[in-house]
């Protein structure tokens, strides 16, 4: 056994082996063994096969300006189509002379969302910003005051419509969802049964069903002579649906509250309402904020379904733009354009929710 030790020079302070440098990195991360090398080569081949044609189509062979669709059919993409149609896709039938109004509305929406992402803003101040913001959006879109001409909701379309449906659905659906979640956790069996029934019913059926219901059944449910506008009907569907989804998220938070918190509140002599408002909800909601953001992303994506009740959201305006006889066949261009808009919203929100989740986890571990 002692032979083994012979002939091995041992430095007093052995220098650290340096596995740095690009070559070492490549070895460790791309060519670490036979399987890994094969996978790397396969992936590289895939990229090499797919990327150049895409770049050629999207950039090199693309046509950037053309008088009409016929002049725009070539080997590459026809971005001239987007140039021609982007106002319509983004803002739809909103009166052309008033385009600044939906633009301003979208900017306000974005500002409100950015403000909501800043954690220092959370609190009363944010609520105030949102109330003012929503009022401003409504005033801008609807008009009829401040010297703005009135624009019927039937003409609201494109991106502002998508944002209105998602944001209002989430905002109104949220308190509804909290109440449902509390009801589901209630000790009173009748309350619990009705809340469970509602939540499971709505979550068990496709969102499309809710939209059908709102557009076909809601008018039947109203007293004779009262009609409501299509946008409001769709909005009701999203609120009902968002309430059920959010209720399940909030329930997760409620279940995670240690029993001791409730016992401590009871011991202090708080009533049910006080206990819920001051002790339970603040903790439960803080825990599920990342999940709430994810639910919002889901609702935002689901707004694209209003195409089936022919509301002109972002996706429907794109579909409408595609049916122009002068500009036919530019499907990929239109879908890529709209897709990038949807994607940016969802991607940044999901990154934000991941960031929050990491921060919360760090806070909890400490």
């Amino acid at each position, binding site marked *: *056994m002692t032979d083994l030790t012979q002939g091995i020079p041992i430095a007093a302070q052995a220098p650290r082996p340096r596995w740095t440098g690009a070559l070492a990195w490549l070895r460790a991360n791309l060519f670490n063994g036979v399987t890994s090398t094969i996978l790397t080569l396969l992936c590289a081949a895939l990229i090499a096969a797919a990327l150049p044609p895409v770049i050629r189509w999207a950039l090199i062979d693309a046509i950037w300006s053309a008088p009409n669709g016929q002049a725009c059919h070539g080997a590459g993409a026809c971005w001239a189509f987007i140039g021609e149609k982007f106002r319509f896709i983004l803002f739809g039938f909103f009166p052309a002379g008033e385009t600044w109004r939906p633009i301003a509305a979208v900017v306000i929406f974005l500002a409100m969302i950015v403000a909501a992402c800043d954690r220092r803003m959370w609190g009363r101040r944010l609520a105030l910003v949102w109330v003012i913001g929503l009022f401003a959006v409504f005033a801008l879109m609807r008009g009829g005051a401040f010297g703005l001409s009135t624009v019927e909701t039937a003409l609201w379309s494109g991106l502002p419509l998508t944002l209105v449906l998602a944001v209002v659905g989430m905002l109104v659906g949220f308190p509804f969802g909290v109440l449902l979640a509390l009801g589901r956790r209630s000790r009173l069996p009748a309350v619990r049964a009705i809340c469970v029934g509602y939540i499971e019913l709505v979550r068990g059926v496709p969102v499309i069903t809710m939209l059908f219901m709102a557009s076909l059944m809601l008018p039947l449910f109203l007293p004779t002579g009262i009609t409501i506008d299509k946008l409001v009907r769709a909005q009701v569907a999203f609120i009902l649906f968002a309430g059920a989804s959010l209720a399940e998220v909030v329930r997760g938070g409620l279940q995670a509250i240690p029993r001791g918190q409730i016992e401590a509140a009871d011991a202090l002599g708080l009533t049910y309402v006080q206990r819920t408002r001051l002790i339970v909800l603040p903790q439960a909601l803080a825990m599920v904020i990342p999940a709430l953001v994810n639910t919002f992303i889901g609702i935002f994506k689901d707004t694209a379904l209003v195409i089936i009740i022919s509301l002109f959201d972002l996706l429907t305006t794109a579909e409408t733009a595609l049916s122009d006889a002068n500009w036919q066949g530019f499907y990929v261009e239109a879908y890529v354009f709209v897709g990038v808009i949807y994607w940016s919203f969802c991607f940044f929100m999901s990154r934000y929710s991941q960031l929050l989740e990491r921060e919360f986890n760090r806070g909890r571990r400490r």
Partner: protein
Amino acid sequence: MSDARTVPMIELQSVNKWYGEFQVLKNIDLQVGKGEKVVVCGPSGSGKSTMIRCINRLEEHQRGRIIVAGIELTSDLKNIEAIRREVGMVFQQFNLFPHLTVLQNLTLAPIWVRKLPKKEAEEAARYYLGRVRIPDQADKYPGQLSGGQQQRVAIARSLCMKPEIMLFDEPTSALDPEMIKEVLDVMIELANEGMTMVCVTHEMGFARTVADMMVFMDKGEIVERAAPKDFFAAPKNERTKAFLSQILAH
């Protein structure tokens, strides 16, 4: 030291290890003879856990040599497998498999690694459960046992592989005070039967009873090693003194 004993079961020769820029092990030399019991202590972050985790390759050392039961640890998977078959390990957090019953926890490795017939493996498992004094818990799940029971199951699980060497990585640190003794008793019994043992622990009473050699580590190096008698009575190094005065203060 251990020179008197002829068969070194574990031999570490100038073992070095880095986490990025940080050096966790600095020129560690250690020999453990057959049947010898070594207790390693030191402040947290001193590298003691890392050192014993290198012995069965849960961590990879970067410089130096480690020879266990006559087999050198290299990146050769065959050697690693051979060494892991000979070395049992007990973790601070027990690491029992929660989806398997106690009996299944004990027979898993004998069946799949040692290729024992199921019946034989189960007999051995029941024998060792008796040895750790929980013969009647075989069909429960780990989640149903107390911490002390879980740790004793973990010891039995390692023993079922009939190892030559047992490594203990702070086996009592995650336990409630009243459960520490039941685990230590099992370990002492094991020591009395001549098992080769390396224990990272702060249980100094246990160390006095069983250790052949005490090793004190700090900042990645072995600062002092001595027989427990000398180690506790007359520590030579200042760092050892400081550490002992803190740990024995209460």
